[in-house]
């Protein structure tokens, strides 16, 4: 029997701050419930969420170079986990900025809205800092439960409940796969620790069961990143959710799932690389192609962005298929670093695109379909320019960050000799330009059928869009700082 594990509380500070923030927000929701002051609740909730996220980010930043285990090696802090902690917190903070107006419409539920958002961020941070499959699972469930609720929270949307229920049912199913896989791994390798699994894997002896276990675990994660064929839930959930939550799902949920996938593949499953590399190859091709083809036929922009996010998961899987198992412990692997870079750019351009969409909807007129945004480019010039930049970045056109992200991913594939995969990726990227640029065409080249109303100014929304705009250009023109950080972070993945 092992004794009580030694605990370094300071390593846990970001999680503690996030938990306290979420609990405080719950209390705040109760306080504001009485007077019906929903506007106050919204603003206070947003302010305290941002404050909590800021303090947590500060705590994480202060320990950026720390490499340490605690809680009997259930939690691991290294530049890789801290990189993702910061990325998730940053993405969540932008989503809070996007939420201020939308959450106001939820009236009674505004307080709980922010609390659930922070709870889900806590689950993600737990996931990316975990060094044990058990902890990863609990973090994943905390994140998912909070997001299921947030998808269904949008009061008057009739398809919110449908999207939420679909997401929940299929998500619960995927969780069952994941926990079954973890149980089989525990049974065949004797541990749930990520590094212990690597040494416990032995294909010669009972390996067949281990392959089943690995497949089940990977299915659980692939569901969260909405890789084809586990993507069926994504369009409905994205469309039904309140738009800020759609952005949150597209960026933060995806980033944390990819972080865990990277860590599990590299720390635990490296001995099985010959098995999962071809799987990633196939899934990358499927995910890119299905996502892009389906996106072309969407009239609803949120739905289109949902399929586009599936396609982007496909580009990221290209990077996973290009991981070099021989580079383990020798030097950095450009394929893995490109995932970190891509996810950062992806977070910024997606938040930006959704931000513009929310801003456009502020005039009391719904702005969700290609029909509805006709002619908005000249009516709201700044928003038109911003949307154009985000669409160009998503399509991968220089000098935006989206171009460099794709460039690094595809060049990593070419480096590993996966020329055909890179070609399929570039072709997909070219096809995707069609539906991204169609948004710009609708905004500028078509006339609106009716008089477009003026839009009320919203400081938080404008701030989020401007920050995203700045980031997309910054990463497109001077990417070296982030690249260095990403290169350094993946060194600790072994």
């Amino acid at each position, binding site marked *: *029997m*092992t*004794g*009580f*594990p030694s605990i370094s509380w300071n390593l846990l500070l970001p999680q503690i701050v996030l*938990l306290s923030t979420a609990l405080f927000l*719950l209390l705040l929701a109760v306080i504001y419930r009485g007077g019906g002051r929903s506007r106050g609740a919204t603003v206070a909730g947003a302010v305290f969420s941002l404050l909590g996220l800021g303090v947590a980010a500060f705590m994480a930043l202060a320990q950026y170079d720390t490499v340490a285990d605690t*809680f*009997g090696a*259930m*939690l691991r802090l290294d530049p890789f986990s801290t990189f993702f902690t910061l990325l998730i917190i940053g993405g969540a903070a932008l989503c809070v900025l996007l939420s201020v107006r939308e959450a106001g419409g939820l*009236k*009674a*539920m505004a307080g*709980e809205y922010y*609390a*659930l958002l922070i*709870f889900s961020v*806590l*689950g993600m941070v*737990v996931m990316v800092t975990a060094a*044990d499959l*058990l*902890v990863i699972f*609990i*973090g994943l*469930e*905390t994140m998912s*439960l*909070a997001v*299921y*609720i947030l998808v*269904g*929270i949008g*009061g008057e949307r009739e398809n919110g409940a449908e999207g939420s229920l679909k997401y929940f049912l299929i998500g619960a199913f995927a969780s069952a796969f994941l926990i079954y896989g973890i149980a089989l791994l525990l049974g065949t390798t004797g541990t749930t620790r990520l590094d212990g699994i690597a040494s416990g894997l032995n294909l010669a*002896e*009972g*390996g*067949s*069961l281990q*392959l*089943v276990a690995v497949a089940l675990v990977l299915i659980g994660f692939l569901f969260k990143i909405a890789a084809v064929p586990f993507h069926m839930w994504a369009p409905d959930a994205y469309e039904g959710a309140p738009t800020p939550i759609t952005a949150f799902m597209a960026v933060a949920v995806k980033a944390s799932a990819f972080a865990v996938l990277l860590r599990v593949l590299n720390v635990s499953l490296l001995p099985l690389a010959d098995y999962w590399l071809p799987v990633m190859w196939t899934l990358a091709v499927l995910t890119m192609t299905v996502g892009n083809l389906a996106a072309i036929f969407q009239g609803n922009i949120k739905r289109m962005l949902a399929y586009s996010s599936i396609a982007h998961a496909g580009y990221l899987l290209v990077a996973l298929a290009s991981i070099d198992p021989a580079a383990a412990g020798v030097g950095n692997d450009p394929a893995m670093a490109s995932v970190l870079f891509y996810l950062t750019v992806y977070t910024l351009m997606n938040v930006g695109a959704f931000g513009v969409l929310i801003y456009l909807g502020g005039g009391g007129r719904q702005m969700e379909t290609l029909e509805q945004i006709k002619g908005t480019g000249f009516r709201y010039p700044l928003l038109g320019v911003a949307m154009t930049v985000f669409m160009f970045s998503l399509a991968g056109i220089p000098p935006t960050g989206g171009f460099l992200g794709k460039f690094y991913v595809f060049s990593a594939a070419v480096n590993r000799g996966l020329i055909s995969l890179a070609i399929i990726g570039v072709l997909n990227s070219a096809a995707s330009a069609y539906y991204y640029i169609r948004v710009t065409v609708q905004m500028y080249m078509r006339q609106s059928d009716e008089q477009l109303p003026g839009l009320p100014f919203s400081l938080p929304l404008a701030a989020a869009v401007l920050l995203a705009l700045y980031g997309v250009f910054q990463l497109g023109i001077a990417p070296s700082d982030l690249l260095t950080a990403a290169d350094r972070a993946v060194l600790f993945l072994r």
Partner: protein
Amino acid sequence: MAEQIFFYFFAALSIVSAFLAVTRKNPVVSVVWLISCMFSLAVIYVILSAFFLAAVQVIVYAGAILMLFVFVIMMLNLKTGMVGQLRNLGLKFVGLIAALLILRQFYSAIKGAGAMTGLPPRAAAGFGEAAAVGKLLYSQYIYPLELMAVLLLVAIVGALVLAGKEQS
């Protein structure tokens, strides 16, 4: 010997009831078979000297969760045959292939593990009792345990939010 008979009887019972739970058309009958499956699993846990786990299995699964199932089914007033059938032939086909693949993989796994002779080795004294499980939970697994508390809190808040939405 008696243990072996017990094991084979309840192992067979759990498989048969699981099969029946999936194939029955009437949801209430399905749930009853599921309860039988959970009980047989609990007996197998006892044979493996995991007494605490067996008790939890009965209380949580056979007791609480399946009670919930029955409640929901009765409240929805599902009639026989109302559980949706897979009409899509393509889906059926894919499902069949996936099931066969998994069966094949499990078969080779069991074959690869070699022949089992008799029962698994006896666990040490005190293994699987509430005290031992508790000590482990509150020492080595304290971090996941505390996280579970957060997870349950999120679930409660979520249920209240979704239920409260209807009223306001």
